[in-house]
């Protein structure tokens, strides 16, 4: 297949449709609006439905409704919009409904600005909605991965009957890069649990309510078991020049792109730097990081936030090596030179 120069946000939609998604319920917000716009353009061309809801709250509940019918369905937004969707996301997790959510993060708190940020890590990865739920969270760092990881999110969602998230920053959404699109998924999985209208099954119910504490605990235990299974099987990361690295940089999304450049530049200066890029933010590659800790001297975590993922790195390393932190916020992005300076100061 030929390459196409395309925005990350548009690659999400093409990837979703190739993955068999035919329903998109959205609400505009910068810098995620191109996702809704591309869905509005392409969905009708493939026999799908795009609907601009009256709010983020309505759109996630439309997703909940459509997912109940067993179709592949998604929504997308940016940070403040995701805050509004969280109740519905928790309902999807509690009701075990597969759906895909894309968050193109922007600066906050509050209305913040529309520039790129990574300040939703806690909100998404730690389950910003209520209750004990987890979602696979995939963090692309290129337009190609915006397509590929969106497709993967649909597979994970259906495999585990759970919402799955693509978490990207405004840069990854707005950037254009060549993308080679994979083949379309020909058939989506059968969903015998869904509210089909042609079944004789009389127990058809999509719900997250259970008034009996014993029963709700049982349901929670079932969910936790599922989460452990995801943790065991779906950790993803990328290593870059890690084999002999003494100083290990950790960053995801657009930060990891800056860190590739920083690692190359540091190595030119004789510093043995390497990079671990978490691709799945949950499950987090904690074992991998722990394994590399003993072979290295120190870690530097770089984020476009006040320090959210760094907590997971510290838990993984558990004090055996120093974990340093460098950040920019409010839509600022560090340059490779800035990172190199930080490393040299350690």
């Amino acid at each position, binding site marked *: 297949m030929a*390459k196409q*120069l395309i925005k990350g946000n548009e690659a999400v939609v093409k990837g979703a449709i190739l993955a068999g998604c035919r329903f998109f319920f959205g609400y505009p917000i910068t810098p995620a609006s191109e996702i809704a716009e591309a869905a509005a353009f392409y969905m009708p061309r493939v026999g799908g439905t795009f609907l601009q809801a009256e709010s983020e709250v309505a759109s996630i509940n439309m997703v909940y409704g459509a997912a109940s019918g067993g179709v592949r369905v998604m929504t997308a937004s940016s940070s403040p919009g995701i805050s509004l969707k969280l109740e519905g996301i928790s309902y999807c997790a509690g009701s075990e409904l597969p759906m895909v959510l894309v968050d193109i993060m922007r600066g906050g708190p509050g209305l913040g600005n529309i520039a790129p940020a990574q300040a939703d890590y806690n909100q998404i990865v730690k389950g910003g909605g209520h209750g004990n739920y987890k979602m696979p969270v995939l963090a692309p760092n290129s337009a190609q991965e915006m397509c590929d990881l969106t497709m993967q999110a649909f597979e994970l969602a259906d495999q585990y009957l759970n919402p799955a998230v693509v978490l990207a920053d405004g840069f990854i959404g707005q950037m254009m890069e060549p993308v080679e699109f994979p083949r379309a998924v020909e058939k989506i999985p059968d969903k015998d649990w869904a509210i089909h209208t042609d079944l004789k099954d009389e127990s058809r119910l999509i719900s997250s309510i259970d008034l009996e504490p014993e029963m709700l605990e049982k349901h929670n235990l079932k969910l936790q078991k599922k989460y452990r299974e995801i943790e065991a099987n779906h950790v993803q990361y990328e290593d870059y020049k890690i084999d002999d690295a003494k100083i290990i940089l950790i960053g995801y999304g657009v930060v990891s*792109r800056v860190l590739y450049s920083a690692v190359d530049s540091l190595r030119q200066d004789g510093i043995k730097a390497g990079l671990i890029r978490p691709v799945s933010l949950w499950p987090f590659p904690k074992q991998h990081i722990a394994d590399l800790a003993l072979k290295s001297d120190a870690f530097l975590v770089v984020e476009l936030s006040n320090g959210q993922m760094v907590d997971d790195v510290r838990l993984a390393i558990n004090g055996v090596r120093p974990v340093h932190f460098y950040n920019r916020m409010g839509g600022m992005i560090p340059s490779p030179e800035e990172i190199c300076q930080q490393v040299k100061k350690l």
Partner: protein
Amino acid sequence: MAKVLQKANSFYDIYERKSGMNKDITHYCPGCGHGVLHKLIAEAIDDFDIRDRTILISPVGCSVFAYYYFRVGNIQAAHGRAPAVATGIKRAMPHSIVISYQGDGDLAAIGGNNIMQAANRGEKITVFFVNNAIYGMTGGQMAPTTIVGQKTTTSPYGRKPENEGYPVRMCELISTLEAPLYVERVALGDPRHTNKVRRAVRRGLKNQIENKGFSFVEVLSVCPSGWKMTSEQAKDWLQEEMVKYFPLGVYKDESSKVETTEAKPHVFTIDNINENLSIPTRESASDKVEKKPQQQYRNPKLIIAGFGGQGVLMLGLGLAQAGMEAGYQVSWIPSYGPEMRGGTANCHVNLSTERIGSPTVSQPSLLIAMNAPSLDKFEKQVVKNGMILYNTSLIDKKPERSDIESVGIPATEIADELGNTRVANMVVLGAYIGLTGILDKKTLFQALPKFIKRNAMIPLNEKAIERGIEFVQK
């Protein structure tokens, strides 16, 4: 007659999902209106023979457990969101019969916008709105439909318009909208009234079976527990007080004007998917970069800047598109948002034979400055031995740096000579490839239709590129 006395088949025989001991009776309080309305709906589902394709949305409120009873597809929704959930499932399964069953707090307070918008879209669903003027489930708090003077636990001195406003009349509101097909308010009570409720329930469902449009049936109902009355007192209060404020009747009915059609199920297909997604299937990119520009021009990192409207984003896009087709790794990132609406605009472009790290360019090896503020802003960031191309038509000074190569191009003047000031960007692009050999003209021309939408503009853009090349090669 026997049928009337039987429990509807659309109810479960035993309410297995209900907690506690008594699984053959509902959780509703004695005298509550929900049970009667449930029965009328269940009987209608039986009579229309639609049980297998009926999906009932249980809201938050007393009817949160409607799914205990109805032997249909059931979805429990978040507070107020039943119309949005109904929209989702109805769009995914257009051939289903979707019922949004909601109370007054759910529908008229927290979900007020959701019901108005679903009505306004004309979603082909049936809404049964149970208005009993109180929050029953949570113990008798004020509802948006609590009438003036009515005492509840959160209006202990009676509802006062100056504090809480007036009760909301939903039928009146919804019937002002264009899309709704059928809007009626009925009341439970004596057999004559209940018969009207039965008719309205059936009309609301029939409209959906015939795929006609949005139906909204408001049912005034009693809540003896919440109102702290006996069943008899409650019935009287409904007829005497509620009906005064919420007049009964048909507010809108267009069902006879709309033709019956058949709702078709959604069919999943991947036919012509690449074509429909505008995904190129023909290999157009070459695998290897054949052009070998001089060392200092290789793997350029560009900042391209100018006024909004000077086409700086398109200049970068054209370079990235042609670069990709020439076999380079490429990235393009715009400054986005309000900046794009007038004011300054800039984009960062990388062309490389190596994997591209940071897509943002902090130290450009090439700056293209289309106006003076752009030169001022970015000149100091250019790397040593880097290059600045600047538009001398709009910049009346030279770059101050002496450790870089700078080339002035009268891009706007050349574009004006060609008859369109907007192709100044392509003049500079031509100058860039002419100077550095990073791309050849043929590749760039082949890429033009990918980023210039109007075919008629292509010859002019080609001319502008040629003039740029000629200018620097003179």
